[in-house]
């Protein structure tokens, strides 16, 4: 499973980080840093990655 991040959509709400801090992190400028770019999410992080993606209010994160 991969998470596709649309950085142009991201508005820095940070609800993903709140849900899954091991997968998503927003820096002080509100910019998103995703832990597993261009690779499959490690199996033990899949549930967290999905949970974080599922609370994005602007559809910037998509599980694929």
């Amino acid at each position, binding site marked *: 499973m991969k998470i596709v991040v649309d950085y142009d959509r991201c508005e820095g709400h940070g609800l993903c980080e*709140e849900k899954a801090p091991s997968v998503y992190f927003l820096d002080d400028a509100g910019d998103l840093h995703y832990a597993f770019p261009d690779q499959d999410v490690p199996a033990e992080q899949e549930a967290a990655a999905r949970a974080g993606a599922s*609370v994005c209010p602007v559809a910037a994160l998509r599980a694929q």
Partner: protein
Amino acid sequence: VNTPTSVVVVGASLAGTSTAHELRRLGYQGDLHLVASEPGCNRPPLSKVGLRVGATPDDLALPGGQPDVQEHRVDAVGLDPAGQQVLLADGRTLGYDAVVVATGARARSLAGVGQSGELLLRTARDAERLRARLDGSRTAVVVGAGFLGVEVASACVARGLRVTLVDLEPPLLRLLGPWLAARAHERLRRAGVDVRISPAELVGDPVQAVRLADGSVLHADVVVTCAGDRPETGWLAGTCLNDPRGVLVDERGQTALPSVYAAGDVTRTATAGGTHRRPFWSNAVAQGKATAHGVLHLPAPDRATDDYFWTELLGEPVKVVGELPLVGDPEVLEEQAAGDVLRWPDGDGWSVVAWGLKRPVPRLRALAAG
């Protein structure tokens, strides 16, 4: 108490789909029906990208994608709590062990009986119609200066329209309190928005102007009503839940009727000062999840409601954690050219506002905790 094996969610709102997703995440494997004549849509983009260039289906996708449900593309027209069934517009009925009322709210209309051409903004179709009308328009009157009215006025300014914003109270005063409302008013004024404090009556059939308290009539190419919303409870007629103030729920979405739950914009919750609605995005998600716990007879999750809220004013993001409105002067936590971070005392903690700055909610919550 038995675990349900048939759950009906009425309304493909954010709260309804959040409930459905959470039920599955919690391991519910029984029948799950979703009753809604229209597919759901994520509403925050409607007043933003939706009015700038038009929202794409991707823009309006509800978080989490399509839940694992059996869909019924039809309206629910009644609830029979004694017989535990939902009545559908096509004459069918759906029996349930638990039902979730997630029918949301509708835009409040100011049009007179039979008066045509009122523009509202609630649904994807409303946004598309309004955007099309803004194309080629030069003037707009926005009636209602709450969050939606100010967002619509902002979109009109961004498109170069001359905007008049009318409300009984100064913009955002009732929602944000006097300090931030004064800032909002000043920003709007500097952007050339003509703010009028007055009742407004829609004029024309189709609507083409508004009449103010002093008798003056403001004509505009586009007249938009942004006068709040009304809980969609009419289909519950004949039950005690058909209350125009919204369906009262507890922290797990339980209503006054057994096996009947509700979540999102259709609800209100009890607080120290009476009951009130929180018709905001984050709260619809939080209530949906909490309601799934209620349906499965599980304890309420840590956060059964959510006080995170955001809006946009003339392109500036405004993010709020905590109770509103805000009274008195804030403490300035951070000040930059683009904006600032402010906080007000709120009970044991703080209400925190980031204005003009992209501050993620975990940071705001940390500041709100002290």
